[in-house]
Every structure is written in structure tokens, then in C-alpha cells.
């Protein structure tokens, strides 16, 4: 397969984007995703591709809009405050059905917060941080290798469904190094042409990139089209991981970095005779409600663990309803809960 | 000076009067006729004085006017 490299999460995401044929990358500096920017700054020009450090995150997402509308694979990355600045642009990208990849290396919030890891942008990513009825596909990697794989996948899904796709990682994942095997690069020229893009109206009617319909019936139709796309994606693209859930009495629901930490918790608990399993959503939108609902029928407790004040927790409760108890354990401020602290919480719910 | 003439696409006219003001020969005026949109459309009040200079067409914000000029026998 590809080369084996020792890379930081930020660098893996950048390298994966390059190998996925990303032709234009626009971003603004912000910790903890600076290395992603630097990797692109170094490597994109070498491949004759576009790297721009934009004057702001707003400008960057607007450049993504232009490049995506012109039919090339394009990406931006930032961290929490920067992603907030991009929300209007993201709503336009969704409204105009433009494929692109947006990476959020989440950090402590709200406000300036800090540069430590967090998961406190879950609502913004999955419920829509911008205006209007829209969704992004949101992918939540839990390891550095998975961050690379999901970035490649993000470009595929974006083009397939003409939708912005977000990689929701966190500062820990961004900064951590792990050995990674990356696939061979895709040549952008080999990617299928996009006949809807603004490539120059030669021998065809003009293509218009638009998210605007003055007539309410037309705007309604635009929304109905988007909603049917979202249903198709929900039917076909849900991804999640179950770990040791077959005989579990308690299941931990956790995503991203916390999903990974909770595998250690599962092993530690089982070493003490406590049958615990892990349910780890990979697509944070579309959320895997059905599999979690099924799982909640065989356990008495689904414990949600997050680096936030409880956001994915709401989706867990939606899926589980009254079938099982749905307690929550979270850390904020950029604190990463230790396996021990999570295990202590699990023990409170043993019956 | 070769004679000229203009043709109005009257349904596009918005009665703004800029062509009337721009004409160096005072050829144009408001017709008092309303188009379907209710605008008082311009017209050639003194067609014989038109020299086909295109000033009216150039200044028209809605490209209502086409201009013709007499072929000068070579």
C-alpha cells in the first residue's frame, strides 16, 4: 500500500487531502491546527497547486466557495473560533450544493477558550452553526490513521453528494503523532469532470452557482431537494464502531479521542469483571440512531462521555429514549478525562 | 452629415429620460404613451434631425435603443 510515516494528526489530514487530489487549500493561522496549514504551505506549491493564507477565516471559506464552484477539490481548516467565522459561508456552500472539506481541530471554548482539546463544537457541526435548514456530513476520527482515512473519504462523499463535509477532530488528535500508512495519491486530472461547475460556458448554457431563490415556491423546492439528499445520505452513509458490546450491561457512547480512550476503559472494566462496551459514532451527522437504539434494548445504561458540557448526549438520549438510563460524564475547559476517571464514573452505574 | 434613425424596444423603456437629455439634436421626447409596465416611453419627436450619433443608445440603462445610420455611398 502507501508509505509508512510517523506524522501528527494535523499533518496526516493535510497529507491525506493532498493525496485525495485537493487542488486548492485556503486557511488562516490558528492553534491547534497550525501544522496543517504549514504542511500545505510547504507541499501544495511544490505540486503546482494553490495554497493561500487568507486574510481571515471568512475570506478562506469564500475562496473555498469559488474554487468548489469552479469544480476542483478544495479544503479549508481551522479551529473553533475560526469555524464560527466560517458559518455564513458554510450555509451558502450547503445551499449551493458545493462539495468541499472543512476541518475543525476543536479547542476549548466558548469565546477565546484555550488551545487545549475539546469536543464542544458538536452542536455547531451537527445541528448547523449557520442559518437555514442544512446539514454537513460530519466525520469524527478517533486516531491519527483514521483522521487520514476519513479525510480521503470526506472528499469522496463531498463530490458524490455535492455537499460540504466536515472533519471534527480536536487539539489532542491534531498534535499527537502516530505511525500512519497513507494510500497512493489520486491525480486530480483523473477525477471526473463536474458539468455543473463554472468552467466557462463554451458550447453550453451558462452554469450558475446559486443559493438564492426569490420565489418562495422555488426556495421551497431547493429545500426539498436538499432534504431528500440528506435522507439518501442518512440511508447510505452512516458509520459507527461497536467494541465489546455483545454481552455488555453498560455501553459507553463516545466519539473521537474520547471514543479511543474509552476502549481502554472497556478493557479496564472487564478486567474487574464489569461488562462494558463502547458505541463510537464515526459519522456524527448522519448520526447512527438506529444501531444505538438497538443496542439500548440489551443494556441497562448508556453512559455518554464527552469533552464538553453534554452535546452528543442529546443525540444519545434521542436514540435511547426510556429504554435505558442515559447518564453523562464530561470534562470541559480543555481537560482530557483519564481512563481512570471515566472508569470511576462507570462504576457508579453498575447494577 | 448622413441621416440616422433609432428604434425603441418600447416595452423595455422605463421612461427615465436620459436619452432625451443626451440627444445633441433634441430629436427625442416623452411620447405620453405608456408601455405595459406603465412607463411613459420616449420616442423620436423630430426624426429628421437624427444624425445616428448613438448618444441616446449609449446612455440608455436598459439598452432599449438600436441606432441606424444612412449608408454613405462610397
Amino acid at each position, binding site marked *: 500500500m502507501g508509505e509508512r510515516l510517523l506524522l501528527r494528526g494535523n499533518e496526516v489530514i493535510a497529507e491525506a487531502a493532498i493525496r485525495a487530489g485537493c487542488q486548492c487549500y485556503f486557511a488562516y493561522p490558528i492553534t491547534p491546527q497550525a501544522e496543517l496549514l504549514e504542511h500545505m504551505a510547504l507541499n501544495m506549491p511544490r505540486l503546482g497547486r494553490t495554497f493561500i493564507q487568507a*486574510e481571515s477565516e471568512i475570506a478562506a471559506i469564500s*475562496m473555498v466557495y*469559488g474554487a468548489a464552484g*469552479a469544480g476542483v477539490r478544495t479544503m479549508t481548516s481551522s479551529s473553533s473560533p475560526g469555524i464560527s467565522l466560517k458559518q455564513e459561508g458554510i450555509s451558502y456552500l450547503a445551499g*449551493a450544493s458545493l462539495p468541499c472539506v472543512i476541518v475543525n481541530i476543536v479547542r476549548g471554548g466558548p469565546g477565546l477558550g484555550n488551545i487545549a482539546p475539546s469536543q464542544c463544537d458538536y452542536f455547531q457541526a451537527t445541528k448547523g452553526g449557520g442559518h437555514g435548514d442544512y446539514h454537513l456530513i460530519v466525520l469524527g476520527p478517533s486516531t491519527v490513521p483514521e483522521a487520514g482515512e476519513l479525510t480521503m473519504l470526506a472528499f469522496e462523499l463531498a463530490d458524490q453528494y455535492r455537499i460540504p463535509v466536515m472533519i471534527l477532530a480536536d487539539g489532542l488528535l491534531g498534535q499527537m503523532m502516530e505511525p500512519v500508512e497513507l494510500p497512493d495519491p489520486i491525480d486530480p486530472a483523473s477525477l471526473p469532470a463536474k458539468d455543473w461547475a463554472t468552467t466557462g460556458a463554451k458550447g453550453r448554457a451558462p452554469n450558475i452557482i446559486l443559493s438564492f431563490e426569490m420565489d418562495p415556491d422555488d426556495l421551497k423546492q431547493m429545500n426539498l431537494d436538499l432534504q431528500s439528499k440528506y435522507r439518501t445520505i442518512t440511508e447510505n452513509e452512516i458509520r459507527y464502531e461497536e467494541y465489546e458490546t455483545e454481552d455488555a450491561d453498560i455501553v459507553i457512547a463516545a466519539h473521537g479521542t474520547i471514543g479511543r480512550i474509552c476502549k481502554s476503559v472497556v478493557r479496564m472494566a472487564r478486567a474487574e469483571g464489569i461488562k462494558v462496551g463502547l458505541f463510537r459514532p464515526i459519522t456524527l451527522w448522519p448520526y447512527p440512531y438506529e444501531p444505538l437504539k438497538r443496542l439500548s434494548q440489551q443494556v441497562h445504561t448508556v453512559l455518554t462521555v464527552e469533552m464538553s458540557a453534554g452535546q452528543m448526549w442529546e443525540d444519545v438520549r434521542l436514540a435511547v429514549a426510556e429504554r435505558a438510563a442515559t447518564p453523562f460524564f464530561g470534562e470541559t475547559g480543555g481537560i482530557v478525562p483519564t481512563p481512570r476517571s471515566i472508569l470511576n464514573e462507570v462504576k457508579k452505574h453498575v447494577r | 452629415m448622413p441621416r440616422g434613425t433609432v428604434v425603441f424596444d418600447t416595452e423595455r423603456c422605463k421612461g427615465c*429620460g*436620459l436619452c432625451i437629455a443626451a440627444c445633441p439634436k433634441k430629436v427625442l421626447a416623452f411620447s405620453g404613451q405608456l408601455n405595459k409596465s406603465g412607463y411613459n416611453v420616449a420616442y423620436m419627436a423630430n426624426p429628421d434631425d437624427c444624425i445616428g450619433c448613438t448618444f441616446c443608445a449609449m446612455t440608455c*440603462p436598459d439598452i432599449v435603443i438600436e441606432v441606424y445610420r444612412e449608408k454613405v455611398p462610397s
Partner: protein
Amino acid sequence: MSANLENMVKVFERPQSLTDARFTYCPGCHHGIITRIIGNVMDELGIVERTVGIAPVGCSVFSYLWYKADSQQVPHGRACAVATGIKRARPELIVFSYQGDGDFASIGTAESIHAANRGENITVIFVNNQIYGMTGGEMAPTTLVDQKTTTTPEGRDPRVAGYPIRFSEMIATLDAPAYVTRQALFDTKHIMETTKAVKKAFQYQVEGKGYSLVEILSTCPTNWRMSPVQSNTHVAETVTKVFPLGDLVDRG
């Protein structure tokens, strides 16, 4: 009427690069003249098939309907950044960003300055009518001192709302831009000069000479509460005093 056209030759008609769509602008609004000029320039340079227009937010939000070219309608103020993205993605395309004064010189200030500072090989048409037209006549960054608008009902008071911003002069201080000029349309002489300027701007882009900005002093009869003819006089006699005409940069 058409009978006597036999021995006549047509010397002025609708540019080929424009569609048949009727403009949505108010009677006498200069947006329509600018659109025609752009159509003529596209015809002359033969570029409509590889041009991408940017439709901003404002009165010209519908401008994607006017040209037989691809277009992108973009968020308010972000046109220059979107144009950057398109041009970098496909350098062979001719990209022009058509923006009003609110879009270009207020909410889009950063994008406008930095696209110019990067010397993006794009053409910006900056329509300066010193007011927000689409939303009903509010103050713009270019609104004149003492000018009454719906948000400066007593007239723009510099002590609270600042002065009309001379954006082209700011852009002209940058090293990268190839061509920066301010033009007007209040009479046929100036319409012809504006046409030459717009052509030069697009020509520079075609030749890869870099960033070009054409600011065009325009009227807004509706929100100025003047007739179209009075509006032209207002530009000629008053607005040009605050926004002097002429080329500010020409490194072509």
C-alpha cells in the same frame, strides 16, 4: 418604421454577450449602463465563453442573469475572495467581481484590500453610488458628508459616522495592482471613457498583468430622491468633488 431601414446600417445594438433578460434596476440607474459596457467589452475581447462573473449581494445580486457567461452568486462582501478561489482554481478563466459600495467598501473591506494586495489577476467593477440601494437607501461608507439617507436622516455627520471613504486611493497605495481608476457615467463623454477603462481592465487580465479595479461613480435616483437627469448633474457637480476622476495606478 422598419421600411426606411433599407439603406441604413445598424451602428448600435445589444451586445452579443448579454442575454435578453430585462434588467431589474430602477429607471435611470447606471447599473444598466455598466452592464452594457461589460457586455460590449466581452464582445470585443471575445471572452464570454471563458468568463465567470461574480454576483454580489445588493441591487446587482441578479447580475448572473445578464451575461451569457458562467456566474457565481456569493455572500455579501466576499466577492473578491470568491473571485480569488475561482481564478486560482482555473487561471485560464476571466473572472470579474461586480460589487456595490456596501459590498466592496464596507462589509467586504478586508477581502477587497487583500485580493488587491495579492495582485490577484481579476477585474473588479466597483459601483459607487454612495448609498445602499437594495435595502432602501441607507448610508454607505461612501455617503457624502451631510447627505441624507434613511440611516443618516439629519445628513451624514462625520463626528458619528465618519467621512466618505476613498477606497480606490487606498488600493492605489498597494504595490501589486496593475490598474486602478475612477470613472463616471453622467454624460456620453464619460460613458466613452468608462468604456475604455473597463476594456483596459479586462485586457490587463487577459494579458495576465494582474489586478484591475474600475470604480464607477453611479447614480441612485430612487434613493437620492432625484430624477435620473438631476442625478447625473449631482454626480457631475458634487460627487466628483469628493471622488475625483482619473487613473490612480497604471502599471500595465
